[in-house]
């Protein structure tokens, strides 16, 4: 995955998910752009559908399974399926788990989608790609510029998995390692893996607002200049539900990678509800 920029790009299948396709376009574009600079071409699987989100598995396990499976069935064989959203990743991997262990599930898949399921399809979150890159040598040869920022890495619930899905690849510390190699300093803080409240933001904002405020206050108190999120849903909840007077800005992980490549676009940052542009210009990092 570390092909030089001029070599033919490596193609991988890509599942952006609804959030990246709509509310978090800046997350999507910065990820596509960063991968392009790394020689990886993200090819959207044709006509992908919603993974079922939190709501499908909350009230109907069969619909949740079928929705995830259609996406697995659309993914071409022989190349990994890269995901951007931790929640979509869990839904797709959960469906794969059922397919692997339940003949009834495989039967349903074949009936609905007209093909046997592909046991070799490797669903992998893009963190796995990013951590394989030799970022320091890219700084050495001027490919990326170091970023002078102190950040609070925010994983939300991403690192939590039920026992059956506890992955062999572990994403603990990926943001600290990659962004650390890119010159950023991470803080140790208490809320790194506190859930953002996800869909409760709609029906129970009274629960989510104090959670979000505590997370962002903790980040600022820890000396961070910004928070970096792994998940577009977390990013939205933190921005939308925060009622602090002067919260620190929140970046998508992929935005900072693109920024280090010098290929960040101004209209990504203008989409943030908490404007990160004053911080970026203070640091001489204006896109």
């Amino acid at each position: 995955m570390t092909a030089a920029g001029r070599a033919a790009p490596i193609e991988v299948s890509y599942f952006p998910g609804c959030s990246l396709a709509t509310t978090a376009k800046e997350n999507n574009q910065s990820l596509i752009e960063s991968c392009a600079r790394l020689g990886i071409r993200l090819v959207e699987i044709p006509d992908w559908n919603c993974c079922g989100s939190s709501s499908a598995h909350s009230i109907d396990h069969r619909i949740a399974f079928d929705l995830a499976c259609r996406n697995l069935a659309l993914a071409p064989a022989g190349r990994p399926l890269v995901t951007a959203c931790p929640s979509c990743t869990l839904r797709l991997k959960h469906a794969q788990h059922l397919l692997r262990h339940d003949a009834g599930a495989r039967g349903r898949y074949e009936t609905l989608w007209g093909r046997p399921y592909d046991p070799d399809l490797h669903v992998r979150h893009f963190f796995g790609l990013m951590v394989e890159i030799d970022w320091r040598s890219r700084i050495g040869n001027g490919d990326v510029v170091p970023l002078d920022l102190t950040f609070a890495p925010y994983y939300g619930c991403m690192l939590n998995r039920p026992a059956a899905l506890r992955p062999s690849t572990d994403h603990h510390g990926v943001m600290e390692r990659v962004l650390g190699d890119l010159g950023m300093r991470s803080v140790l803080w208490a809320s790194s893996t506190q859930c953002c409240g996800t869909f409760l933001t709609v029906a129970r904002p009274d629960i989510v607002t104090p959670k979000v405020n505590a997370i962002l206050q903790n980040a600022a108190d820890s000396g961070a200049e910004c928070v970096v999120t792994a998940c577009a849903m977390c990013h939205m909840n933190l921005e939308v539900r925060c009622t602090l007077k002067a919260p620190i800005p929140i970046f998508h992980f992929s935005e900072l990678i693109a920024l280090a490549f010098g290929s960040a676009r101004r209209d990504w940052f203008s989409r943030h509800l908490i404007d990160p542009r004053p911080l970026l210009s203070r640091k001489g990092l204006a896109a």
Partner: protein
Amino acid sequence: MERSEAAMTPPKGPPIRLSALDPQFSREIKRLAGTDFHACLQCRSCSGGCPFSDHMDYMPNGVMRLVQLGLKQEALSCNTIWICVGCHTCSIQCPMAIDIPGVMDALRERALAERVAVIEPDILAFHREVLHSIARYGRTHKLEIMLRYKLKRRDLFSDLDVGLRMLAKRKLDLTPSRIEQIAEIQKVFRP
């Protein structure tokens, strides 16, 4: 540190009747959830770590006890199953590797199948709007989900400021992102 009165007091309601145990219910939830909650030894790690336990009537470990015993009515009508967002903080803390959110999923589904009165109707209404959107477009259309949800609750004004800020920042698309083969999605939603 003194423990608060509330933390030691069981939820209000009629006393639990041990004559009403339903082992069949216990087996059914185990089958649906695909995890063995009988392994729960009431260490309460799940409840200690749960970010939302303050808002639950039964703590997660309490729900494990309810399903072990087959206390169907209590398990299906508690608000815990609706407040749980499935963040799996409990799963990684459980020393017995129980998929606790998987149990919550199973209970929610049973509660709907048995038409138990839902104590958090707004949360259920939101889930239904998300599924409605997926059934219609193959993907979620956030603006329409929010508008329909607000209309159903006859409450268009709460969160109006949030909606307008999101629109101003181009975070809410007016038109849905939709798939081409919608018939395939309709196949999924056919009962």
